[in-house]
């Protein structure tokens, strides 16, 4: 589904990713862990097509397509979702307006008609229930006045509504209390399916107690320096990252 080969990327002229390789197949959950500044968020942003990140070398193919030449909105329409580490507040654009515009843009891309207004509301309310989000908040501006935890839950709500094929969640677990973490994990687990894949970018092992990954990778110095199964996450939790960075 996703094939990253020898990816090099710079931010403001600084080399951050230095030859990253990663293959994600349908149905898999990958966790990418690593110390601060190792390039985790850069990887997420490069994949989502955020401005200011320059790819200097390497290829990224998503479902066989060259992901890097697609504008961000086209990547989303192809089924890629990025859960932001710091979701933006947009006063004046309600959550419902965002969700409906996004859903219809993606449907249009697939040649499907616009969603019926009633079906849309039923669907969004169901997703909000799963995420423990008060339906009243849906009429408020996107993330406007939301707490940190509410913003993260709102990211997962968007993911549930949009049903992407590949979700990249950038530190979605950071700043969450244990109850919010369980709700977020429940949202992710609900979406796990044979045709879908996840990349969880995280600093901590905590989320992986609730979302069992198939693979764990350690990103350090802009490259994947070690890959393994779920046991690698526990090892990292005990030993920290120092032993890998030194290696």
């Amino acid at each position, binding site marked *: 589904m996703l094939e990253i080969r020898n990816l090099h990327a710079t931010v403001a002229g600084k080399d951050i990713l230095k030859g990253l390789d990663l293959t994600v197949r349908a149905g898999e959950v990958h966790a990418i862990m690593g110390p601060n500044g190792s390039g985790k968020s850069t990887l997420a942003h490069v994949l989502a097509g955020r401005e200011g990140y320059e790819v200097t070398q390497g290829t990224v193919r998503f479902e066989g397509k060259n992901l890097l030449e697609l504008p961000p909105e086209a990547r989303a329409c192809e089924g890629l979702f990025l859960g932001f580490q710091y979701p933006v507040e947009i006063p004046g654009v309600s959550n419902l307006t965002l969700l409906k515009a*996004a859903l219809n843009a993606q449907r249009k891309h697939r040649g499907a008609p616009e969603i019926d207004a*009633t079906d849309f509301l039923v669907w969004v309310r169901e997703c909000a229930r799963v995420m423990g989000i008060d339906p009243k908040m849906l009429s408020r501006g996107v993330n406007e006045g939301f707490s940190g935890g509410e913003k993260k839950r709102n990211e997962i709500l968007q993911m549930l509504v949009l049903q992407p094929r590949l979700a990249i969640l950038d530190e979605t677990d950071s700043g969450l209390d244990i109850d919010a973490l369980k709700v977020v994990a429940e949202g992710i687990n609900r979406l796990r399916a044979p045709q879908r894949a996840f990349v969880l970018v995280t600093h901590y092992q905590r989320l992986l107690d609730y979302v069992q990954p198939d693979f764990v990778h350690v990103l350090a110095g802009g490259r994947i320096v070690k890959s393994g199964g779920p046991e690698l996450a526990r090892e990292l939790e005990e030993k920290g990252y120092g032993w890998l960075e030194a290696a």
Partner: protein
Amino acid sequence: MSVASYAQVFERCAAAWPAAQRRARRAKLEEFLRLGFPTRKLEDWRYTDLSALAERSFEPARRTAVALQDALLPRSDRLVYVNGELDRNASTADELSALVETETPGATGVDALNAAFATPGLNLALGPHARLARPLHLILAGAANPQAAMTHQRHRIHLGQSAEAVLLVEFRGAAGGDRLVTQTFDIRLAPGSRLRLYRLQDEAAGSHLISRMDARLARDARIDIVCLDRGCGLARHDLNLELAEPGAEVELAGFYQPAAGAHLDNHTRIVHAAPHGRSRELFKGIVGEKSRAVFNGKIVVSPGAQKTDSEQRVANLLLAPRAEVDAKPELEIYTDDVKCAHGATVGQLDETALAYLRSRGIADSDARALLRRAFALEVLDRIAWPALRDRAALLLGYPPAAETALDP
């Protein structure tokens, strides 16, 4: 400068006016010939140049057929003028049409020109405690004439003690033609009266619209105004509000989004002439490619107007390199014991918000429209007339909000 063509047109019109009017009109014409159109040397006209009008020649405009279907709002009364002539078939309140005198003194040559050629307009006079049963929609439509044409109208809105009214003044124009339109409004609000006034402008390219509204608020009177400007070749609005007696209140909001090639000039002047007045003013604008907006908001707190509470806020989005906005707040405060706040900003669309919306699959142009609407909502939400609010959003080209489907 030569404004001779206006004198020639005057002589041709004069025969049709009753002798009693001729004298006063001629005096106004002479005043106009002396003053001419305001030039950019006048501080209040620095950014809007009317000098080219002096060399022009405009025939008195004649009524022609014009489509009004999309202007109609449910559950309201209508008074419709096309090129300054009353359209009785389209009006439901034609008894309110009259040639009116105004008590406000003129300030510029344009005011004199308006008075010299004035034709009938709205004459609304409500007695004490009277209340207009339905909102009144005054439609001032322009339509193409074979020659360049001009329209000059005067209107009067006088509310008696504790009277209430909702009024929508709409300047609209059919495409084509070249016209000069001046519209003058004389508004008097007796103690405790309340006027909710909407001013909507969507004139066509090629038009010159100059409007002036003067409102005087007596004790505890209140005026709520929402102004929206979209089209036009050149539009200049002067809005003068005088809080003449204690306890008067002004709530003023405006939004402008000039179409390509348009020049929109809003001049507002709020004079606190008595103690315990309250005014709130918010103007926002979005200015894009090859268009220009001017905003000048003056607040005057006269000597003796203690406990005045006044706020003014202006915010603009400049969306293209060749767009221009000249925003100027002006405060003149001659009293100590007052609360006055003001602020003006010019900015761009929030790139982070734009990136976020696009990351969800929303096309760049749609995402920008959502953000422009978000910016405008603060003003649009002041429109307490849902059908008008929807029309205004449509006029500005905004997508409908998803949450409207929440309330069946």
